[in-house]
C-alpha cells in the first residue's frame, strides 16, 4: 500500500531517472556534433591570401608588363 511518503519518493526517483536520461541524451548529442574545421580553415586561408595578394599585386603587374612574351 502506498503511503503519500513512498509515493513522493517514487516520483522523485522517476524524476531523477528522467533528468539523467535527458542529460545523457543532451550530452551524447553534444559529443556527436562534428566541429566544422574545414570551412573555418578555408576562411582563414582566404583572409591570409587576400593580404598576400594585395602585397604582391604591384610586383605581379610589373612582372606581366616586363615579360609580355609569356603573358
Amino acid at each position, binding site marked *: 500500500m502506498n503511503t503519500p511518503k513512498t509515493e513522493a519518493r517514487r516520483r522523485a526517483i522517476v524524476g531523477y531517472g528522467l533528468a539523467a536520461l535527458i542529460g545523457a541524451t543532451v550530452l551524447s548529442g553534444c559529443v556527436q556534433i562534428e566541429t566544422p574545421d574545414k570551412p573555418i580553415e578555408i576562411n582563414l586561408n582566404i583572409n591570409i*591570401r587576400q593580404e598576400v595578394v594585395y602585397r604582391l599585386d604591384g610586383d605581379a603587374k610589373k*612582372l606581366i608588363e616586363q615579360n609580355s612574351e609569356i603573358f
Partner: protein
Amino acid sequence: MTGNDMMRLKMWKPTGLALAAIAATAAVALAVPSAMAQRDPAYAAARAAGQIGEQPDGYLGFASTPTPAIRALVQDLNIKRKAAYTERAQATGSTVEQFAFTSGCNLIANTKPGEKYQAPDGRWLTRDDSPPVRNASCP
C-alpha cells in the same frame, strides 16, 4: 691627387654613366626582338579563337580540346611562367602559388572582350565589357 687627375675623374664619371646607359639600351634592344620572336602567331590566334584562356591560378588553360601544337605551345609558356613566378616569389618572400595567383588576378583582369578565362568555379567564360568573374581575394 693632382688637379689634373680630379679633372680626369670628373670627366670620366659622366662618360661611365653614358656608357652604362648605352649598354642598358642595347640590352633592351636585344631583348625586345627576341621577345617578339617568341610570340607565336598561333598563340594569338588560339587565344582570339577562345581555344585557350587565363586560369585563376596564373597559368594558361584550354577552354576546348587543343591541337597538339597549341598544347605544346601553352605548356611551354606555362613552364616559362612558372619560372618567372618562382623567381619573383623568392624575391618577395611569398610562395610560387601565391605569386602565380596574384598574377592570375591581373591576367584575367587584362583579358580583352571575346577572350576566354576561367571563373573560380571552373567554368570557362567569355570576357565581355563587364568586369570578369574573379576570386574574392583578387584586388
